[in-house]
């Protein structure tokens, strides 16, 4: 392209009045916009010289059509100058540090020379220091009350919001004309010391004498369906300014009294101020007829919906899709299910070659409405052919030649990017392999829910199709899900088993899972296993296989692993291999010998698990296929066995409730004893607490002990191997506390870590006596979810529950803002090839990443190499 230039630097400054006049293609002289025929008035704000608005119309100024005409500025000569609201701070600063008579900086000439020299030396290498030097100079000059140059006495100058400057001396209120003259008097040298470059931003230009009128393209009018023209906010504001300006001019010409001129001048100031910024403190915002404030210049740029954050930092893209997500355990974790309708709208450009021309012809022949087809063809000359409007697809297919580009439908095996907001970490956007499926939702494997933080209660996700071979290759090698199994957040797998996968793994791997040959065949068929079925572990009385044998088939042949299982606790605790309870996982030479699969073996977000080491030591590709197979196996098994929760799982016999009540009664006694102690002043004070706090703490402790006791009681009456317990113990879902709350009692409800005490005077609710600090009056819930809670208990439970909701609401907004600030401060800091962390300028941030240069994703126990694991891996065992 001729005339192409490289941008080396950008300099920001102010427009000088001369510059504005030079840019101007027409002077704006009349507030009228359209004449009676609806044609734009010459000299009005819609003057055709300002640019074209209708297609095919030639611009009066540049002769271009709509697409090529950039628009042209006009100008408006103000009858009296006004202050630019954006620069009031600077004006105030300069007025205070310069002389009211001669305009010179209120420092001695030698000093100015000295500072100027220092400033010039600092400018290039320490721009920030130069800035603070200027600040210092100005601060010093402000303190001088007699001009060192002309000896004039100086006065304090007060700034009154929004645009008034008042001298606390003979002059009083300073009119903008006076301010402009003052600012113009300042010698250039003195301005430079203060940090202003008079060439590009002379302070006197901050007093507006000529207003630039932006081109019409900046403020297009919209034609409503009713045929009425609606003008842009800026146009409205400009008309206001011109009208006021005309009235002011008129008043001056006819010699109106000073007060009237002043009033009109202030009005002009108001209009110009709101034209620039409609959110100035102290200025009533200009409103539309509907009452909503106008969106003027500053509002167009500022904030989330402003030009910067919305249009420059954020962009909208093509080749993307969004819909609801739903689960599909039969996909690979690398895959994403894409609805046919979506696949027929998203396309991948493919260049026709002599090798693929037959395939391309088939797509073209199928056209845009038959899958798998094509939507567009791009000829070598750049012409785009929309196949939707082409009647003769056969001819188009015939005409296909190498060098053409066919935009074909999305096919199985294409790579796409998949994303769920909020995109908080890098695993929020990952590459998936397309699997086109019937239906209207995106399908994803359940194991990838944790990285996206997705569930299926109506979540929607976005999909993007990379268009170039480079982008596709990058997505395939760097972004593919399997490359993100290990998270840099905690050096463990973020993708792994959740919920039913864990329950299923436990059930299959437990000792009781004895499988007949039919069952074994069924299970192995579900993962398309090819190979020998191993010898059954049990030969008599009937040949039976253990679930552990099937799991062994999926493990690498040389894999060694040992760890306590999650269920290892209480009476069934195991700490090493010599243990009867089967809660210590032992894998030797790829054989699953002992223990059970639970959250500690395959759970998502569990570092140092079996899954972690499989992925770490055998690579992401093996890790992925292991998960695909193992999870499908677990699911098949849990389907065969059946898994549900019934009321019986948490129902305890009536006499157990009596026991629980007894536990509560004992707690009550203990509390009343404690209160007596407190009243007698004999209560032991907890260090660092007041007496009252000690009492509260003591009561809280007693009550929490009571709940635990009640929970233990309930557990005693429940089948320890019912499904609810299996879920809680294996870590699949829920906790022991949840079981306690369902079966035994809810326990103490709390707000801000304290018992609930606010409400009425000296009591929480009118059902209690004043000053009652017993458990029931302070939010202790004796009943369980199964038994049902009383209305009062319900109230306390809701009070405690509300705190949680408020907390999450507050936390998300706060952490969101923190994230934004962190990103803005660190977004282009990179780790260089030498291991150092640097900014884009090459400045050193860290001499070595994290001081040790270790990637947390590939670390274990915070180190690059874990000796413990290396020994275990190669020897198979280790002396504890």
């Amino acid at each position: 392209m001729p005339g192409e230039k490289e941008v080396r630097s950008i300099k920001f400054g102010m427009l000088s009045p001369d510059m504005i006049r030079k840019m101007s293609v027409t002077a704006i002289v009349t507030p009228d916009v359209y004449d009676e025929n609806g044609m734009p008035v010459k000299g009005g704000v819609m003057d055709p010289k300002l640019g074209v608005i209708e297609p095919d119309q030639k611009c009066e100024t540049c002769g271009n059509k709509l697409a090529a005409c950039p628009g042209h500025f006009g100008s408006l000569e103000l009858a009296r100058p006004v202050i630019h609201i954006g620069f009031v701070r600077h004006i105030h600063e300069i007025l205070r540090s310069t002389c009211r008579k001669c305009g010179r900086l209120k420092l001695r000439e030698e000093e100015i020379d000295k500072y100027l020299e220092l400033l010039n030396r600092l400018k290039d290498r320490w721009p920030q220091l130069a800035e603070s030097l200027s600040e210092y100079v100005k601060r010093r000059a402000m303190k001088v009350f007699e001009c060192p140059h002309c000896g004039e006495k100086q006065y304090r100058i007060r700034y009154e919001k929004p645009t008034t400057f008042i001298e606390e001396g003979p002059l009083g209120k300073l009119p903008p004309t006076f301010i402009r003259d003052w600012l113009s008097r300042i010698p250039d040298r003195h301005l430079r010391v203060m940090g202003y470059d008079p060439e590009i931003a002379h302070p006197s230009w901050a007093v507006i004498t000529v207003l630039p009128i932006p081109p019409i393209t900046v403020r297009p009018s919209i034609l409503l369906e009713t045929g009425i023209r609606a003008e842009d906010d800026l146009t409205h504001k400009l008309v206001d300014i011109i009208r006021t300006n005309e009235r002011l001019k008129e008043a001056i010409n006819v010699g109106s009294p000073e007060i009237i001129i002043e009033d009109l001048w202030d009005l002009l100031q108001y209009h110009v101020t709101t034209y620039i910024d409609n959110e100035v403190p102290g200025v009533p915002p200009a409103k539309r007829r509907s009452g909503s404030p106008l969106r003027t210049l500053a509002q167009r740029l500022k904030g989330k919906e402003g030009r910067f954050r919305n249009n420059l930092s954020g962009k909208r893209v093509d080749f993307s899709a969004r819909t609801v997500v739903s689960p599909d355990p039969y996909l690979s974790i690398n895959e994403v299910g894409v609805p046919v309708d979506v696949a027929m709208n998203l396309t991948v450009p493919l260049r026709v070659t002599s090798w693929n021309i037959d395939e391309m012809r088939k797509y073209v022949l199928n056209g845009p409405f038959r899958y798998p087809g094509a939507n567009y063809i791009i000829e070598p000359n750049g012409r785009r052919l929309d196949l939707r409007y082409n009647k003769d697809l056969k001819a188009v297919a015939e005409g296909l030649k190498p060098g053409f580009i066919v935009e074909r439908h999305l096919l199985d095996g294409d790579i796409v990017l998949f994303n769920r907001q909020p995109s908080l970490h890098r695993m929020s956007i990952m590459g998936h392999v397309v699997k086109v499926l019937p239906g209207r939702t995106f399908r994803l494997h359940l194991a990838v829910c944790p990285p996206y933080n997705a569930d299926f209660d109506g979540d929607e996700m976005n999909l993007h199709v990379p268009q170039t071979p480079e982008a596709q290759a990058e997505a395939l090698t760097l972004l593919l899900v399997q490359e993100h199994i290990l998270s840099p957040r905690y050096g463990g797998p973020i993708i792994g088993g959740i919920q039913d996968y864990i329950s299923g793994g436990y059930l299959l791997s437990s000792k009781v899972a004895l499988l007949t040959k039919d069952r074994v065949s069924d299970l192995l068929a579900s993962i398309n296993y090819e190979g020998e079925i191993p010898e059954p572990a049990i030969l008599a009385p009937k040949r039976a296989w253990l679930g552990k044998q099937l799991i062994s088939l999926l493990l690498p042949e040389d894999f060694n692993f040992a760890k306590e299982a999650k269920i290892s606790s209480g009476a069934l605790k195991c700490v090493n291999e010599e243990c009867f309870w089967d809660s210590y996982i032992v894998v030797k030479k790829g054989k699953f010998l002992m223990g059970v699969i639970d959250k500690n073996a395959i759970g998502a977000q569990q570092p140092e698990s079996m899954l972690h080491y499989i992925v770490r030591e055998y690579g992401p590709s093996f890790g992925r296929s292991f998960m695909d197979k193992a999870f499908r196996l677990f699911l098949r098994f849990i389907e065969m066995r059946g898994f549900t929760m019934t009321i019986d799982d948490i129902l305890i016999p009536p006499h157990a409730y009596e026991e629980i009540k007894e536990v509560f009664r004992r707690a009550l006694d203990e509390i009343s004893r404690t209160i007596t102690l407190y009243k007698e002043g004999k209560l032991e004070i907890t260090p660092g607490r007041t007496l009252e706090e000690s009492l509260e703490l003591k009561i809280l402790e007693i009550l929490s002990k009571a709940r635990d006791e009640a929970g233990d009681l309930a557990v005693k009456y429940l089948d320890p191997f019912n499904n609810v317990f299996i879920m809680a113990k294996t870590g699949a879902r829920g906790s022991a506390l949840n079981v306690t709350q369902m079966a035994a009692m809810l326990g103490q409800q709390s707000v801000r870590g304290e018992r609930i005490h606010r409400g009425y005077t000296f009591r929480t609710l009118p059902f209690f006596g004043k000053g009652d600090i017993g458990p029931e009056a302070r939010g202790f819930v004796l009943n369980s979810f199964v038994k049902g809670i009383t209305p009062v208990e319900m109230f306390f439970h809701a009070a405690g529950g509300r705190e949680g909701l408020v907390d999450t609401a507050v936390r998300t907004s706060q952490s969101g803002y923190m994230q934004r600030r962190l990103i803005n401060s660190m977004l282009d800091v990179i780790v260089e090839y030498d291991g150092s962390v640097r900014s884009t300028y090459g400045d050193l941030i860290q001499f070595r990443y994290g001081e040790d240069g270790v990637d947390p994703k590939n670390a274990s126990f915070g180190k690059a190499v874990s000796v413990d694991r290396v020994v275990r891996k190669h020897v198979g065992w280790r002396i504890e």
Partner: protein
Amino acid sequence: MVDMASEKFDILKHELVPRHEVLKPEEAVEVLRSLGVRPEQLPYLRASDPVARAIGAKPGDVVRITRRSPTAGRVIVYRFVIAG
């Protein structure tokens, strides 16, 4: 009360103050060369920093700091001394 202004209190002996040393010009040049940076691309250390004053670092010097790190054991970092 410890009198901070008095000469008796040596901050270099405090356990939270890592070892600082001013590099000789030749050493400094070598360090900058190996890191591939200009002096002002190093992190700064103000000449008015108590440790800088204690070891007599002047603007333009490069200071080596040897300190313990929870991740890497012992780490060596460098600072460029600036006025202020």
